[in-house]
């Protein structure tokens, strides 16, 4: 239509359309002739990247205004200062001169070799004090347009009418109290209900190419985050609408704060020239408003953890202080930088200096930071683990450790205990052995206890605290079949000592998965053990079930501890998909998906029930469960009924088909006989197996032995 109309208009105006060079026609910016572009949605909010190559040019304002005689000197100074930031292109420095006054205009342009260098110059030279009167203002050339568009007069911002948002907690209102999960396979990303009663997943939302690399739930389950070239986005509510976008080109990794108030995004920009620094960019967004709260830019080395190692360990920022998202910390070379989220600045405006700090770890609930410093000066200064209270920065407790090779810290989920796994050198320094230092955080003076395994040479394969509990499990041993021990921080005899509950000998396991509700643990043999599973009840110290999900790579409990998902992801070629098990090891259903990448349960926010109330419910479980059991039974009756119906239908359909075919078969009977030289051969297809019983009497003889009655 549009084409026809255009041609009519053209002929009226006397223009030959075939001679028009379409590429030379440029519409004024913003003019779309009323034709809406389809990709509006894609481009909106993305910073446009100019092909023109202005991104390596900066504009420097507030340089001295000098007459032509001094021009060379000025140029020399500017060049000297700015060339520290990078290589200035040949004729890349231009200081314009006012033709009227023959003086410089007080600004200049500098063209660097790469945009990265320009970026660096903008960062480092902005506010550079040349002298008291000349403080440089450095801006990217590409930003000029942005500044030009700033209106001269301030207009009060429009107050937008309040639009009630979607209920982001909608999934928690499910009548059947089911849990959701997200899976990614091939190009599809799907959110599903785990309908364990019906033994199948129930689809919620499905979308192709939803994300470009991975998806991630926020820690309380409110949002689902997707990652794209232009940045990250979060989705939520009943219909999985997009709630917010966070622009961050080439974002690689994302991390939510535990209370899901903030989102950290990370990208790394490998230099094209290996001599240039490898730069990383981190942005911290407010999840709800989408505003950048703070950005961090620098070379990758600055963000490398624990000193010399190159490369960034994720997450760079560790969130502390529980669900309030009050603090986050970053470890640097001999410093720990702790920021607070009210102002997004360092606490007390300075980092904590700790010589050679290797590792830090927040308490999951309290603003307490545990840190590990290795041995210094060839063993003259012992290694130490210390606990620091934030924001006061006072040391709560410290423990010196000798001949240490490595330390790992494990917090119990409610912040009551801290276990430090310490690898120590033996006397010969040729091998190491492992022990544990157990801190009781909530007790007075934080007592420390040392735990050593019975066989000191055992390697520790895995360690895990019972969530919210006081027990932990350790897999240890050198043999192909290691042992698993359970310990309790409380014991009936003397409450202040850790005690061993039991040791399971020779298990095919190398990973521990506690139920989020505690009490049950899944002992898994992944990788080399090919997916051995053992469901273990720690209260009763007995195995509930053993099973196998062949080649399983990932295991995750649902947030309520009712179900476990084991999955085989695309690291293996075959058998991709997932299994859903009940907590006691019964296989509920099995879904196969080729190219299976991710399985993630949707987390739940913590329960509003008080611990007392929870205990009461646990005690009177029989009373509460009655209602649900009745429902379960109804469902299973309905299911078997449906199943029967379906089977009947299929059978009937088949019978019909067979009957139809038999008719044809009958019609062709004579032809077939002719083909078989007249052999009446159709009977064989309907032959009957008759069972013929033949009884054969071999010999019958009657003998009268005695006749008692006659005497």
């Amino acid at each position: 239509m549009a084409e026809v109309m255009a041609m009519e208009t053209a002929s009226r105006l006397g223009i030959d359309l075939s001679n028009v060079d379409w590429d030379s026609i440029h519409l004024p910016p913003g003019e779309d002739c009323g034709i809406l572009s389809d990709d509006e949605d894609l481009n909106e909010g993305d910073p446009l990247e100019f092909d023109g190559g202005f991104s390596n040019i900066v504009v420097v304002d507030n340089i001295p205004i000098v007459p032509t005689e001094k021009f060379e000197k000025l140029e020399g100074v500017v060049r000297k200062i700015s060339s520290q930031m990078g290589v200035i292109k040949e004729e890349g420095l231009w200081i314009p001169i006012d033709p009227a006054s023959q003086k410089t205009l007080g600004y200049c342009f500098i063209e660097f070799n790469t945009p990265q260098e320009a970026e660096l110059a903008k960062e480092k030279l902005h506010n550079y004090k040349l002298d008291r009167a000349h403080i440089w203002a450095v801006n990217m050339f590409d930003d000029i347009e942005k500044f030009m568009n700033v209106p001269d007069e301030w207009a009060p911002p429009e107050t937008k009418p309040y639009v009630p948002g979607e209920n982001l907690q909608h999934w928690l209102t499910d009548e059947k109290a089911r849990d959701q999960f997200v899976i990614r396979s091939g190009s599809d990303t799907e959110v599903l209900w785990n309908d364990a009663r019906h033994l199948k997943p129930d689809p919620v939302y499905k979308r192709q190419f939803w994300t470009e690399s991975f998806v991630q739930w926020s820690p309380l389950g409110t949002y689902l985050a997707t990652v794209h070239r232009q940045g990250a986005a979060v989705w939520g509510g009943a219909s999985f609408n997009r709630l917010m976008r966070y622009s961050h080109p080439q974002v690689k990794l994302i991390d939510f704060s535990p209370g899901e108030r903030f989102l950290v995004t990370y990208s790394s920009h490998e230099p094209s020239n290996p001599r240039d620094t490898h730069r990383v960019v981190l942005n911290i967004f407010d999840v709800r408003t989408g505003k950048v709260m703070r950005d961090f830019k620098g070379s990758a080395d600055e963000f490398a953890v624990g000193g010399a190692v190159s490369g960034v360990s994720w997450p760079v920022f560790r969130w502390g202080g529980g669900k309030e998202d009050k603090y986050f910390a970053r470890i640097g070379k001999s410093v720990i930088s702790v920021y607070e989220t009210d102002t997004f600045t360092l606490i007390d405006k300075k980092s904590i200096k700790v010589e050679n700090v290797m590792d830090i770890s927040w308490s999951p609930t309290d603003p307490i930071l545990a840190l590990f410093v290795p041995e210094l000066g060839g063993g003259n200064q012992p290694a130490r683990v210390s606990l620091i209270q934030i924001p006061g920065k006072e040391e709560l407790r410290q423990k010196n450790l000798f001949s240490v090779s490595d330390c790992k810290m494990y917090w119990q989920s409610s912040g009551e205990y801290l276990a430090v796994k310490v690898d120590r050198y033996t006397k010969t320094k040729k091998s190491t052995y492992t022990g544990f230092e157990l801190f009781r955080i909530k007790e007075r003076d934080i007592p420390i206890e040392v735990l050593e395994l019975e066989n000191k040479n055992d390697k520790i394969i895995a360690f895990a605290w019972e969530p919210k509990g006081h027990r932990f499990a350790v897999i240890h041993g050198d043999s192909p079949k290691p042992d698993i021990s359970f310990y309790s921080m409380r014991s009936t005899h003397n409450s202040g000592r850790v005690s061993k509950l039991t040791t399971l000998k020779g298990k095919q396991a190398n990973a521990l998965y506690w139920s989020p509700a505690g009490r049950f643990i899944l002992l898994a043999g992944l990788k080399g053990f090919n997916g051995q599973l053992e469901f273990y009840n720690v209260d009763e110290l007995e195995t509930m079930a053993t099973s196998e999900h062949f080649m399983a790579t990932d295991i995750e409990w649902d947030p309520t501890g009712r179900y476990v998902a084991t999955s085989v992801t695309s690291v293996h070629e075959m058998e991709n998909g997932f299994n859903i098990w009940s907590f006691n090891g019964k296989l509920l259903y099995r879904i196969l998906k080729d190219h299976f990448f991710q399985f993630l349960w949707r987390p739940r926010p913590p329960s509003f029930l008080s611990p007392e109330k929870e205990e009461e419910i646990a005690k009177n479980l029989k009373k509460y469960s009655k209602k649900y059991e009745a429902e379960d039974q109804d469902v299973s009756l309905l299911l078997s009924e449906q199943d029967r119906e379906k089977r009947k239908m299929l059978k009937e359909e088949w019978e019909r088909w067979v009957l139809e075919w038999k008719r044809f078969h009958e019609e062709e009977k004579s032809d077939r006989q002719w083909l078989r030289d007249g052999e009446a051969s159709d009977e064989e297809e309907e032959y009957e197996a008759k069972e013929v019983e033949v009884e054969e009497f071999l010999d019958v003889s009657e003998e009268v032995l005695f006749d008692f009655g006659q005497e």
Partner: protein
Amino acid sequence: MRPILMKGHERPLTFLKYNRDGDLLFSCAKDLSPTVWFADNGERLGTYRGHNGAVWCCDVSRDSMLLITGSADQTAKLWNVQTGAQLFTFNFDSPTRAVDFGVGDKLAVITTDPFMELPSAIHIKRISRDPSEQTGDSVLTLKGPQGRINRAVWGPLNKTIISAGEDAVIRIWDSETGKLLKESDKEIGHKKTITSLSKSADGSHFLTGSLDKSAKLWDTRSLSLIKTYVTERPVNAVAMSPLLDHVVLGGGQDASAVTTTDHRAGKFEAKFYDKVLQEEIGGVKVFQVAVKMAMSGCIISTKTTSISGFNSTVAMEV
């Protein structure tokens, strides 16, 4: 279930076939000698010597008198089942892959592989009752499908020929004119190489197994899809029970990949499905590779190949 182990072949098995009565089992292997066994006790009756290459396929006539075998030595041979005597040799220019007797055993279809720039082909030969009158002339030769034709069988009344192979398409040809009558739908059909094809006892439907991890049941006349059986692995062989509504799928990876993975990784399992309900009924774990199967009565035979070079046929009662 009582398995009978039949040891005799020195190289991997390629094909198994029961005779109509179900008392004889014919096995083909990559060694040169097709072998016949008593089905009920696994005793070896004899071998058919004369081929000079791997034997890919065989078929036995309705009266169990005549055996036809196709081999990589570019021949197909007719044998006297009873005496083991070679009756006739059909010579081709490329290895023969599949053989099948038509209704009445007076016609046979033989497929040849693509070889030295020769395309794959389907040949129809007339079989004489009297071996002395047998000639090697083809009644008809069909060409067209890309890649290897893994299986070709006769349709009802010898009017059609059904072929399937590497191009994942099932074709029905007119056996008199050589015209292509039907092709399986790309959408609903197999997505990868079809490895095996097996007709029902009455010829009304047939089952195809494919590397796309599924097996499909088709109507012989209309080529309409009746059922699909989905499994976790590439299907290497399929069979249907002549008595019960059961189908068996044999799967796993290629024999060449066996040595590189855990024997369970390939999960060489024979899986039983309910033909009508499409539900899995059970499975038999086979020691190494289950590739070829034939089913007669309540007995299935699975072919096993092990990496140690020990090859055996296992017959199992279900």
